[in-house]
C-alpha cells in the first residue's frame, strides 16, 4: 500500500510540475515581454518590495501547509511529529532567509551602490531601485 502511495505521489508531483511549466510556456507565448504583476501596483520602493516579499512568503507557506496537512496529515497519515516538524522547520527557514534577503537587497540598492552603478551605466540609476 505504501509503495503504491509513493508511486502515485511521484506521478501526481510530476503532472503538477509539468502543468506549471506548460502554463509558463503558454504565458511566454501569449505575452513574451510582459512584466510581473505587483501585489499593490501603486506602492513603490521599500514598502512595495516588503509587501511583495511578505505576501509571497505567507502565500507560499500557507499553500505548502495546505498540501502537507492535506496529504501527509489526511491521506498518507504520517506521524504528527513529521507534520509538526514541517511547520516549524519551514518557519525557521523563512525566518533565516527573510532578513538575509532584505539585508542583501539593501546592500545592493543603497545610495552608494546605486551611485557606483549609475557611473558605470548611464540611465541605470532608476533601474537599481527595489
Amino acid at each position, binding site marked *: 500500500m505504501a509503495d503504491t502511495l509513493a508511486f502515485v505521489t511521484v506521478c501526481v508531483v510530476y503532472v503538477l510540475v509539468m502543468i506549471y511549466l506548460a502554463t*509558463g510556456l503558454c504565458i511566454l507565448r501569449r505575452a513574451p515581454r*510582459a512584466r*510581473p504583476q505587483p501585489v499593490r501596483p501603486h506602492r513603490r520602493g521599500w514598502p512595495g518590495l516588503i509587501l511583495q516579499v511578505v505576501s509571497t512568503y505567507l502565500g507560499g507557506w500557507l499553500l505548502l501547509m495546505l498540501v502537507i496537512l492535506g496529504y501527509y496529515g489526511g491521506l498518507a497519515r504520517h506521524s504528527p511529529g513529521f507534520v509538526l516538524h514541517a511547520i516549524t522547520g519551514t518557519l525557521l527557514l523563512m525566518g533565516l532567509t527573510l532578513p538575509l534577503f532584505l539585508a542583501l537587497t539593501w546592500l545592493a540598492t543603497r545610495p552608494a551602490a546605486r551611485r557606483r552603478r549609475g557611473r558605470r551605466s548611464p540611465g541605470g540609476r532608476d533601474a537599481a531601485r527595489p
Partner: protein
Amino acid sequence: MDDLPQHARIGYLVWAVLFACLFAWEAIGLLHPTDSFPTLSQTLKAVMRYQFGRWVLFAAWLWFGWHAFVQGWHFLLRGPVA
C-alpha cells in the same frame, strides 16, 4: 555514514542521465535565445508574473530547502559528531 543504504550504481547513473538531459536542454535554450527553445528560467519567470505562480514556486523552494537543510540538520551543515 555506515548506516547509508547501498544502492546499485545504475540508480545513480539514471539520475546523472536525467540531470544531464535537463542541463543539455538548458544549454540549447541559452545558445538559441529565441522563443523556440525557452530556458527553464524564462519559463519560471513567465509563471512568476502572477502572484499564485510565485506562491507555488516559493512553496516548492521551501519544501526542498526544508528537506535539504533543516530536516535532521547539524550546525553549519556539518555531519553528526562521532
